[in-house]
């Protein structure tokens, strides 16, 4: 059984060499592997010097949760257990993080909604834990299929939300997530989302650094609030006190507290820019009539469409959003300049990303924004269908 006190300045408790985030993400030599999103989550967490993880089964994230458990059994993670349900799990995660652990958990669809009350509590208590979300349908009748409607429920929880496109980005993003979330001026929870199955169960090639190097450990004393461990003043400290005017004195505290949580998310931009190489990523023609704005698998489908449109002589560009909270408004406006048509393909019925895009571009863009194609309930988004939508606006011969 490894002990946290086994850690030295050079090696973490599992004997991995401690390296800088930049080295791990950008400089360390990488080798090609062929694996699923679930498997790559294990590889990422293995290199993150994680203190704690709590799990609960729900498709499609269960395999990732099993594999994190294996890391604990192998001595890479300090403490791990199966909670009673997602509400309990997210509260157990809060306890671990408040007490000073670098903490990760995973969930999907109905689990996310069951746990919902916890997420604004997470951000309000300024814990930098990571939730790896493998999006799944949440409607009745029950579905386990990929559909990311659940993400719309998380948009205003005060947590950061990043969206990974594929297995490779999931690996890099879940490592960068801890680094950015733990910055003292950020220090709020981060939700790293992928579309369930499309990423969790899809096997593809991925480049990984060696597994004998890892991130420096989390320092709970370089944080905006003292950890709950009785080791840092003030001795009289309630992490999330009642400050309601009815009992005490201040509405202003509540207002200011909530603005501070939003400010913290905003401060993450400059760090995310560095560790994600940009809040958005653009591929295709610099000047394009057709611009796809998408995140996750939808941006993958859009890239497939871009390739076909190029063959047909249509100028086209794909703007992939890597961060949803904070929303990359300025980057989006810059990237869509001069577009005739902006298509927002989505894997949900309400078009929450379309709403975000329209809100961001309102009064600042001439482009026509089209919330299509939109599929739901786990349907795929064949490139053929995307091309049909585009053909309704652009002449294709």
């Amino acid at each position, binding site marked *: 059984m490894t002990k946290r006190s086994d850690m030295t300045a050079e090696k973490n408790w599992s004997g991995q060499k401690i390296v800088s985030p930049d080295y791990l993400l950008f400089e360390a030599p990488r080798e090609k592997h062929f694996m699923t999103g679930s498997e790559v989550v294990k590889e990422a967490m293995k290199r993150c010097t994680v203190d704690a993880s709590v799990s609960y089964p729900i498709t499609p994230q269960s395999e990732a949760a099993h594999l994190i458990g294996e890391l604990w059994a192998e001595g890479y993670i300090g403490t791990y257990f199966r909670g009673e349900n997602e509400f309990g799990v997210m509260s157990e995660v809060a306890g671990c993080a408040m007490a000073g652990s670098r903490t990760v958990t995973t969930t999907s669809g109905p689990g996310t909604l069951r746990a919902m009350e916890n997420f604004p509590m997470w951000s309000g208590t300024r814990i930098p834990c990571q939730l790896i979300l493998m999006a799944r349908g949440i409607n009745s009748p029950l579905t*386990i299929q990929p559909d990311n409607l659940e993400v719309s429920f998380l948009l205003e929880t005060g947590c950061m939300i990043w969206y990974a496109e594929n297995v490779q980005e999931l690996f890099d993003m879940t490592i960068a997530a801890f680094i950015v979330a733990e910055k003292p001026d950020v220090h709020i929870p981060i939700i790293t989302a992928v579309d369930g199955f499309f*990423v969790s169960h899809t096997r593809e090639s991925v480049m990984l650094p060696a597994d004998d190097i890892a991130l420096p450990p989390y320092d709970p004393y370089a944080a905006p609030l003292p950890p709950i461990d009785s080791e840092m003043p003030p001795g009289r400290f309630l992490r999330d006190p009642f400050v309601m005017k009815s009992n005490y004195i201040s509405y202003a505290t509540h207002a200011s507290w909530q603005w501070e949580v939003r400010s913290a998310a905003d401060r993450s931009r400059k760090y995310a820019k560095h560790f994600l190489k940009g809040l958005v990523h653009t591929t295709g023609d610099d000047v394009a009539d057709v611009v796809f704005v998408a995140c996750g698998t939808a941006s993958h*489908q859009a890239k497939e469409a871009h390739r076909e449109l190029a063959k047909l002589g249509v100028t086209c560009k794909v703007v992939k959003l890597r961060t949803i909270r904070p929303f990359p408004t300025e980057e989006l406006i810059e990237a869509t300049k001069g577009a005739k048509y902006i298509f927002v393909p989505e894997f949900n019925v309400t078009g929450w990303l379309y709403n975000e895009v329209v809100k961001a571009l309102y009064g600042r863009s001439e482009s026509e924004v089209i919330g299509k194609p939109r599929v739901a309930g786990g349907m795929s988004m064949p490139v053929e269908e995307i091309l049909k939508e585009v053909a309704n606006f652009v002449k294709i011969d």
Partner: protein
Amino acid sequence: MAKDSIKVRMPALGGQGAVTAAHIAATAADTEGYYAVSNPFFGAEKRMAPSESYTRIGTVPIFDRGEVVYPDIVMIYHPQVVTMGKSYTMPFYAGIKDDGLVIINSDIELLTDEDKKILADKNVKVLTKDFTKFAIDIAGTELATNMAMLGALFGVLGTIGKPAIEEGIKDRFLKKYTASGGTASLDSVIEKKFKKKLDLIQKNLETASAAFDLAAEWAKEVGLEPMLLDPSHVVPVDTGYVTA
């Protein structure tokens, strides 16, 4: 004419190993230098219930994900897919592209005259063969059917060689591999049938290899055009990952 990417749809019955086959196919293609992706249909598949998996192979990065709605190749692992409609699409060749290919595992002719006409009009070639018997003859178990189908696929394509297939099979059975509960226990059943893993791999290889030759022969006979550009056309592209 050969394309820069093809999509393969594999309708099967739960327990036949179509997911495993899709995985090995993608690994083999990846080994050969192609871009490749495999995934199962996302459901709660049970034994003998419809189960589908997909493999996408290309000389360009494969961005497309999920169910293959418009396949270039359809591989039918079990006659019931057609006779009892144990398939997520009706008819089983729905959405198939022109100049496509259908591989059917059956000891009898399953196509109606109407099916044949529709497929002929789209210039889709059909290879029907009792790959289960083929597997029993060579490997001594019907559980190697998926290997026979796999060999046939690559025999027809002709641009992914036997060494790559061997690599794919070894990767699947020798590496630590995350499989769903059902697949994991099936693995152990297979292992019981053969004494040693290597023995299992050898049998699988022989089955796939024989089917490879048979299908390559067939492709010549029917004058099948090459479907997929060979790996020399693979172009490295900045796919925009955090680590480009």
